[in-house]
């Protein structure tokens, strides 16, 4: 299954619980039809990884995920030779090896005979495929998610270049392995470091920022069907107000959803100040942010005496 048009992309994503803007849908559609990898950047929690999962669901493809971290190397991302297995097989086949070389008179001839059998030990059988190799050798088209690529080291980026430009991987002992089907590659980054120009050049780029209040309201209503639209608007307005502050970590979409869940669990239909303050830890994950937001809300509400009364009022 493929995306047929931008409208079709929006529709399929919506069917899979992802409200996508026109821009997101356009870039996803282009990545699909041109077979180019898609590099998505944006603050944490705006739905970058979720977008990849949704694309996989919408296209009915398997999602293969590579979670990047500092120090990740080809052994964890592409393939690894199973040394222990190779050595054990050598031991187990000792007799057979004797049989092969027994008939030879000289050492050189015996080495030649063994060398002729080399492929038996450097074959797919002894390779442990990691996500990147799995993605290109998969018999069915897949979605490959290279998550948080900015956490990896710059030389790992270099390893990715061959895959991203030619959809192939070179293994010195086996040669070049080409993709059976071009995977839909999505790379995500939190911009903790700038990716190299060479990597960016191979990708389409999409920056996902915090959503507009309208889009966020749609997301809330999609995830919590039946929620009162007026209540959803209030929730989104409160979160948007908190996001406008200079915080260490601004509340993301998933935190808006968690907060909505919390408010619904408390069977609330309004959001008075004291309720916001009591449930603020769902939105703010730093002590300094909590203090900052509380101060902002109290100042906004009015005189300090007034809200103290309010905050202490039974709810």
């Amino acid at each position, binding site marked *: 299954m493929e995306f047929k048009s931008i409208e079709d992309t929006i529709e399929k994503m919506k069917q899979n619980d992802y409200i996508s803007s026109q821009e997101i849908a*356009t870039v996803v559609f282009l990545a699909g039809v*041109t077979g180019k990898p898609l590099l998505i950047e944006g603050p944490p929690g705006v739905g970058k990884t979720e977008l990849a999962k949704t694309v996989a669901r919408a296209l009915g493809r398997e999602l293969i995920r590579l979670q990047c971290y500092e120090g990740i190397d080809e052994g964890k991302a592409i393939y690894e030779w199973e040394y222990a297995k190779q050595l054990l097989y050598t*031991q187990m086949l*000792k007799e057979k090896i004797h049989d092969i070389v027994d008939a030879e008179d000289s050492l050189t001839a015996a080495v030649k005979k063994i060398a002729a059998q080399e492929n038996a030990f450097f074959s797919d059988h002894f390779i442990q495929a990691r996500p990147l190799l799995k993605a290109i050798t998969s018999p069915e088209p897949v979605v490959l998610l290279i998550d948080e690529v900015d956490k990896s080291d710059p030389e790992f980026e270099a390893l990715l270049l061959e895959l991203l430009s030619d959809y192939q991987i070179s293994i010195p002992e086996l040669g070049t392995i080409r993709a059976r089907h071009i995977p839909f590659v999505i790379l995500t980054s939190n*911009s903790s470091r700038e990716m190299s120009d060479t990597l960016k050049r191979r990708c389409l780029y999409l920056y996902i920022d915090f959503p507009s209040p309208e889009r966020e309201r749609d997301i809330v209503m999609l995830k919590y069907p039946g929620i009162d639209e007026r209540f959803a608007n209030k929730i989104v307005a409160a979160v948007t107000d908190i996001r406008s502050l200079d915080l260490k970590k601004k509340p993301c979409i998933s935190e808006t959803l968690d907060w909505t869940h919390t408010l619904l669990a408390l069977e609330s239909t309004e959001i008075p100040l004291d309720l916001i303050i009591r449930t603020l830890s769902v939105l703010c994950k730093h002590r300094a942010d909590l203090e900052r937001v509380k101060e902002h809300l109290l100042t906004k509400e009015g005189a300090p005496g007034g809200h103290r009364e309010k905050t202490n009022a039974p709810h």
Partner: protein
Amino acid sequence: MTATIIQFAQICRAAGMPVSSAEVLDAMGQLEWIDLAEEKQFETVLKANFAKNLYHQAIFANLYNYFFHHLPNIKRTRRPPAAGKGTLPLRGITRDSATGGASREELLDLLAWDPLAHLDLLLKIQSADLDITQLHPSCFAAGEGSLTSARSNRMKARIRELWGRDFPFGDESLRLYCQEYLVDTLPNGRPPGAGKGAHSLVPRPFHRKPARRGPANLGEIPFQQLTAAETRAVHTLIARLAAKYKDRITRRERLQKKKLVDIRKTIRKSAQYEGLPMKLAWRKRPPKKPKVVALCDVSYSVWAAVPFMLNILYSLQDCFRQVKSFVFIARIAPVSDIFARLETMAAIDQVMDSYELHYPRSAVYGGETEKVPLDADPEISDYGSALAEFLEKFSDTLDRRTTLMILGDGRNNFLPPGADILKKMKEKCRRIIWLNPEPEALWGDGDSEIFAYRPHLQELRPCSNLQELAAFVSDFLVHPFYGNG
């Protein structure tokens, strides 16, 4: 359409966005898949291919609006030449007016805002070897930042040169073009003193940045523009960064211990178990620590960046085999012993205090006492003699595992640059990395000799704010590929 997109790509490049030919081709190919009547889709295709970070996306939005919305209108209406209130009375500038008068004052006002790019432009126009209609926007991209002493000197030289010539009154159209371009490329698109709203069409990347207001990302503020409080905050950030980098280095060393199977040892060990590889042996590599020698120019133009560089280097000194540092203007002075005696910030304080410089307003060193400005600076930057002195007296600090870092703008006051001396130094060490606190657009301009040094450098990088300094340290000193050995 093709020509328009190529032209737009060129404008993006002029604004500092690295748009490659491959990306232009990609964008053109992708246009086939969208509905060209839908402008949002068209914009998205260009944005996804041309602007590949958040900063460039903001520039892109400006340029796109300017190129596809304002520019066609300007072309269509053949904008009348700027005249009257809010424009520069260039007509009145004659050689005689160099002696005084309102015109001169106005021109000087203009120069004080953003002088160099415009002066260069004026000179080119006067030489009549430049077709002004072919002007590339990058001509205007250079002028930003405060007036350092080096820039101030260059500005004076340009003014003298300009004053020495006649302004081309004969060619009225050239004069009008010149007038329009100057007005359009002034900060915020209008001359000093002009009312709001005039000439606001020029896209943001070509403007001088407006004065900062309120909190901004500390990492992006140029060292020269930091306030005293921000300077302290940056030093605190550096301490945190250094702790993070140390952690990275330690973790990497731990990982390295268990990275590769040592086949030879594994087979040897298997002899104990009748040839069965019961225990795998791992290859161990002792961590190789690099040695760092830093040469820091402490002349006025570079001064602000030096304390941060020294702070980060000495905060990470446990991770290096050795750190040696020297400061220079024309004569070189070792300062490593100060760092050996004192705690890092106290040592920086002492080093910075020992130079009789005009403290910038950000000064937080030397007890924060204002120094009396000197009428004549007895020492001006002379990289040639400083490098020669280093090679003569301290060349024993260099060896094949040494990374030599030079922090300076390469502005040599038109003295011999001594690039051959740098070449000799390169032969004695592993690599030379040069960090230039000046914006890239100014490199090679006037007395900047940076391009004479470039052939002998492994890397030449801008280093005007914390973000660039941290990226450099991460890439070259902390990262395993570059850092070791």
